[in-house]
């Protein structure tokens, strides 16, 4: 009997969500035995129109509609199609699914997520403390709660530096005037706290990594971005063979006891070649399908882990594999829209996935 997997995050317009890469990875290279179920938020989430990607698509309430409502909806879907494993792929969902973990388990739906405690530690405003405690380099950062700390923070960090919001926006600044201007702009738009961060000159790398229950590294896909969209998202990248990056992710994952998938953003300083941790995203990245092509299928690993298996670490990725993101148009009849708007679901005739 095949395993039925439900995946969220299916909208791939100008800022693609990871769910599509996850579904493609599961089907790679020879199709998937069970049913694949797409969980989407909007009638026009693009992925649910791709009949080759999934067997069923369902609309679910946004996480901000509350735990109970999301749970009720997933329970109804589970009753209709049976879900064995659920893979949430969006930042905004993580907290909700952590809270639903035991209730979903009660229904027989397994997940493999990082713990709430882990997530707290990697929050942008807390990353510095965590890194200090674990001897991991990260750009020096000061959290500003009170505008009067601003001047001192500039002196302490020195120029150039970044003025950053806790969730959005980062501006490179070279002078006090510039920094003050950007700080005021951020403060007006988002309020405080804001961050002042040391600007380090170097090259950026991304790693998608998977940790087991103790944070041991089971697989990692190091890559370097080749082309960026104007929003800074990769639309082309190449896999690397770089033992230092792998060691770095191993150490970070272990220090956080990171369970499940994540994307690490890492910077290598030009002169010293020291590695700095910039950010950790607690989910698969949108480019995850690259791994399947490079001999490391982390979504398949995630399904095994969710089902309680304890797989061996994967052999390293093949380096030099490239992806190029390519947008295409799908054609669909009016019934698709009608079914999604009125019933919130869409079923594709049974086909080998």
């Amino acid at each position, binding site marked *: 009997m095949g395993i039925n997997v439900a995946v969220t995050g299916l909208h791939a317009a100008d800022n693609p969500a990871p769910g599509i890469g996850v579904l493609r990875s599961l089907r790679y290279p020879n199709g998937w035995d069970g049913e694949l179920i797409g969980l989407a938020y*909007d009638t026009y989430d693009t992925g649910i129109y791709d009949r080759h990607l999934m067997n069923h698509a369902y*609309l679910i309430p946004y996480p*901000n*509609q*509350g*735990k109970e409502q999301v749970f009720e909806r997933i329970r109804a879907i589970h009753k209709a199609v049976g879900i064995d494993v659920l893979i949430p792929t969006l930042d905004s969902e993580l*907290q909700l699914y952590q809270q639903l973990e035991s209730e979903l388990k009660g229904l027989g739906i397994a997940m493999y997520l990082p713990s709430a405690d882990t997530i707290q530690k990697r929050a942008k405003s807390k990353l510095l403390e965590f890194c200090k405690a674990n001897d991991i380099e990260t750009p020096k950062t000061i959290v500003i*709660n009170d505008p009067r700390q601003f001047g001192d923070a500039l002196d302490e960090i020195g120029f150039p530096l970044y003025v950053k919001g806790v969730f959005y926006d980062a501006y490179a600044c070279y002078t006090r005037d510039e920094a003050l201007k950007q700080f005021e702009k951020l403060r007006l738009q988002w309020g405080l*706290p804001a961050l002042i961060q040391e600007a380090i000159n170097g090259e950026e790398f991304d790693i998608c990594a998977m940790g087991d229950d103790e944070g041991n590294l089971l697989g990692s896909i190091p890559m370097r971005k080749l082309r960026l969209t104007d929003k800074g998202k990769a639309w082309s990248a190449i896999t690397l063979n770089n033992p230092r990056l792998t060691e770095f992710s191993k150490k970070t994952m272990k220090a956080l006891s990171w369970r499940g998938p994540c994307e690490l953003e890492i910077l290598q300083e030009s002169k010293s070649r020291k590695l700095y941790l910039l950010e950790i995203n607690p989910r698969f990245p949108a480019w995850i399908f690259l791994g399947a092509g490079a001999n490391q299928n982390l979504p398949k690993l995630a399904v095994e882990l969710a089902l309680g298996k304890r797989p061996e670490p994967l052999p390293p990725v093949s380096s030099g594999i490239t992806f190029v993101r390519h947008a295409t148009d799908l054609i669909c009849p009016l019934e698709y829209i009608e079914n999604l708007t009125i019933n919130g679901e869409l079923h594709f005739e049974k086909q080998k996935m």
Partner: protein
Amino acid sequence: MPKQKYIKPIIIRHASAGMANKFGRPLTAIPTQRIEGIQIQELAANYGSPLFVLSVRELRQRYRELHRAFANRYPNFQIAYSYKTNYLKSVCSILHQEGAWAEVVSGFEYDIARDLGMPGNQIIFNGPYKKRDELKRAFIDGAIVNIDNYDELNVIESLADELGKTLEIGVRLNMNLNNPPWYKFGFNVESGQAYDVVRRAQSSGKVKVVGLHIHAGTYIDDLTIYQKAAAGILQFYQSIRNQLGVTLKYWDLGGGFASRNTLHWAYLPGEQTCPSYSQYADAISSTLMSIGLPPNEMPRLFIEPGRALVDEPFSLITKVVAEKRLPSGQRAVILDAGMNILSSVQWYKYGIQTVQDSGTMVEDTVLYGGLCMNIDVLNANVSLPQVRFGEYLLIPHVGAYNLSQSWQFIFLKPAVIAIEDGEVKVIKRAETREIVQAAEELPDDFRF
């Protein structure tokens, strides 16, 4: 053939973007028919609408849970209920039955507590403005007084002369903990101001510092703020103990714990982001316990919760008094309750529940209060089924600040009832015009 149940006809135009999908039946479409087992319609019929309803069971239960969470982790612990949150006599008195002390911030609140029979030595008197005669009475009664500023210290020193004895005081601290930091109250730790005031107080011989107090803000759902506050107070105590020989009888970590309501700027609902009592208790007591004193030498730990105790046990019953369609096509509903009795709508995106079954097809609706003011909006966008004129809605979790901060404006304030064991008791009668105008005079010269 029996007739079908009627639901108002609607057509919804699909917007090109930004419409939340309605799959997963919105909770607003699942009617809540009873509070504590009693029909909401019956309550409204008997006591009027709008109507505040207190579940006494829930209030007691919350107190007991909060107390247990801390008492299991800290040996010498006491809750002082923050009166300002809701000083209805019954609310305070029920919490005193459960064992709470009183935390007051004005002479008016102090009198309420004494009048209920609270002994002075179970009242904590805080706030930036305490009058001389109020302070005098508090010291005579043996109340716990936390000072806020130097001017107050001067007054207290002169009272010490007048009363002919050394007066025990606590010092309210502030630190850079959150955003924005609450620097208005007390003495700043980072700048050395707090240390200076303790030194000055100790050296005068007229007062003796026996307590430290901090209250970092309200609706704090970030546990690290409590960890930092506890660490800050601990470190400050170590410095004044070692250098100034101060021995504390208590430290007071204030209130500020969140309730399950959702703030306007929050993405996730409060029910998901609000930490549990145990998490708060852990954050505070694990830090304080690290001081490593034997249990009998540990200062007593006070907390002063308000919101986290009384928000959830209260609901507001309100009635639909009109339906409208706005030029934008959006549906609007006008209620008999307004922001005059629900001032926390400034901060909260209140949840709304239906009382009758109005079908499952929901529509984005704006809920207006009944005041003659354009800003009187109780929820700018809620997915609501087709509730009709005369039907009731329920707004849960309204017990904190709304009753004590309500304003008198064009309508009379509604009644408040309490339900326990299926029995309804009126704890505040609906206001009458006589009550509102009782303090007014109309001089003969002004008559016509």
